């Protein structure tokens, strides 16, 4: 049985004059200890997916329909008490910006100990000892002193390590990391990613890594979902998606990577912008930016179907491939 099974998850936002759909029938599975990447541009619905898994959407967002089965129990149907038992305990989250995630007026120790005591019957001292052990695991020097410090006394990288330690405090089954290194210095990003990979592997923790960085996804994850305008448009093993992307959007993302460009040349951007949630075009949401778009693409939303090694939502995927084959044959 998979650890997490999301079925037809639809999330809507009730705005003043209209209701927009932010997630449109998302389905995916995650096995125990598996690492999954979710990639896409800003506004594709990656973070909303992450927050939905914990049922932590704040108004005006809400889960409209669908199921989120975590260890066999539907998160969508859980009452507040069950949700509190889930959050931070069986499923932990790492937020994007460590500079604003920790409470500025509480010490690191208070914020770690309260998390342990919220879920387990422990004395303050026992909780403190666990906190120290976890801080050691994320390579924080002199953890006893850190517990007495306030967040502003620590660097961003140090804070994100502490947030990772907090995520690991109660040995969860799944960690959701929402762009955990975007706000950090480039030199620290690699350290943090390596640390997360190491800890997830050694503790058999499942990971959902939300990012726009395909390079990170290829290092960190076994499977990848590509999202666009609230839908999954391509899903499969990370290696296949990176090496042989099927959807024109995924191809565009990979071609836009600096590694794919000869130095000195302009980066290959995907023309145009992702549509806002209120103005998603009919048919395939990507069609205005897609050079392969046909009348069918402009009329009907493509189903996600298995094609070669991956699942892809594109009407033209076969034609696209035969074109490529012809080009290759000519070359």
């Amino acid at each position, binding site marked *: 049985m998979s650890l997490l099974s999301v079925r037809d998850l639809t999330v809507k936002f009730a705005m003043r004059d209209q209701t927009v759909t932010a997630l449109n029938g998302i389905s995916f599975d995650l096995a125990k200890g598996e690492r999954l990447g979710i990639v896409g541009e800003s506004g594709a619905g990656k973070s909303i997916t992450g927050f939905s898994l914990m049922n*932590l959407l704040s108004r005006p967002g809400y889960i409209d329909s669908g199921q989120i089965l975590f260890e066999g129990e539907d998160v969508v149907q859980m009452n507040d008490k069950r949700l*509190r038992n889930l*959050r*931070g305990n069986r499923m932990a989250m790492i*937020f994007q910006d460590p500079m604003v*995630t*920790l409470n500025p*007026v509480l010490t690191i120790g208070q914020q770690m100990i309260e*998390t342990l005591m*919220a879920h387990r019957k422990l004395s303050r001292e026992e909780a403190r000892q666990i906190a120290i052990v976890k801080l050691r695991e994320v390579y924080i020097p002199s953890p006893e002193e850190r517990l007495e410090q306030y967040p502003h006394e620590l660097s961003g990288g140090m804070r994100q390590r502490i947030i990772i330690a907090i995520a690991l405090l109660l040995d969860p089954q799944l960690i959701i990391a929402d762009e955990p290194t975007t706000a950090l210095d480039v030199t620290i990003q690699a350290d943090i990613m390596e640390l997360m990979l190491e800890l997830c592997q050694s503790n058999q923790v499942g990971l959902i890594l939300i990012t726009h960085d395909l390079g990170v996804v290829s290092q960190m994850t076994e499977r990848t979902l590509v999202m666009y305008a609230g839908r999954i448009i391509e899903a499969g093993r990370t290696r296949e998606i990176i090496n042989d992307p099927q959807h024109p959007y995924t191809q565009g993302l990979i071609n836009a990577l600096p590694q794919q460009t000869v130095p000195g040349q302009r980066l290959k951007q995907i023309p145009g912008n992702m549509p806002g949630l209120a103005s998603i075009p009919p048919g395939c949401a990507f069609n205005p930016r897609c050079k392969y778009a046909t009348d069918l693409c402009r009329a009907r939303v493509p189903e996600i179907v298995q094609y070669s090694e991956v699942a892809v939502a594109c009407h033209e995927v076969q034609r696209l491939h035969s074109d490529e084959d012809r080009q290759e044959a000519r070359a």
Partner: protein
Amino acid sequence: MFAYLAKRVIQAIAVMFVISLIAFAIQGNLGDPLRELVGQSVSEEVRQQLRDELGLNDSFVTQYLRFAGNALQGDLGTSYFFKEPALDVILKKLPATLELVFGATLIIIGFSVPLGVYTAIKPDSILSRIIMGLSIVGISIPVFLTAILMIFVFSVEYGWFPSYGRGDTVHVWGYWQTNFATADGWMHIILPSIALASIMLPLFVRLIRAEMMEVLQSEYVKYAKAKGINPWRIYFVHALKNTLLPVITVGGVQIGTMVAYTILTETVFQWPGMGFMFLEAVNRVDTPLIVAYLIVVGFIFVVTNTIVDLIYGLVNPTVNIARMGA
């Protein structure tokens, strides 16, 4: 710590200098002091002679320096009406005013925090809407009207509370008499305290609510939820502490302002404090007393603000008092 304290004290002295300058400048524009000192029958030559003796013909700077020098030694002039040092007159009235402000502060702190937090947590509930509606009414009605209405309802119609004076007071030390030692004293201070709090309390409810709602939207509150923390702990430990930081700063200024508001409340309730005294002094053109009042109120203002800044530094861990001002 010492450097920070020294810096704050120097600032306070600078503010006091400006206040004294303004107070002194007003003195010259409140009519001829000779008219108050001597009758109409004194001849012009004698008046000139008196002016010279009193130093009223000296330059502004000389007069101010003399005034400031005396003030530093605790001499703010002699009240024309009481024939006593102005400072002594004010200090005798000070305890009554400070107790009134203290009573109002207790009401404000006791009610604004729970009401502000409740209306922030449940912004759509009917009770919240009622509280917010009443707060607008409270802010809009002037203090003297609230005071008169309360006297009419609770003293005249129902007879629950006395309508004027301090009632039974008890000597605590020196000339300090307190209202808080007898039941009668308590009964007398309740209505004036509510009247004095009637504008600040709604203001603070709204301020706390607005700050709290903003804090509840913050990432760290969301993060606390994601850690599975009990909502009460999130409201009162995670959110309230951050909410109160800016409120403390505003609160300090408002306590100072309340000392000034006492003029209206004390007048309506015939409360024998320095606000009531000030109004009488204005009526009698008792210039030294008016000037002394301005300086004492300015001093209270400066002292409360300095204390509040120090408290803020202690409460907020991101302000390092030990390093500040160094």
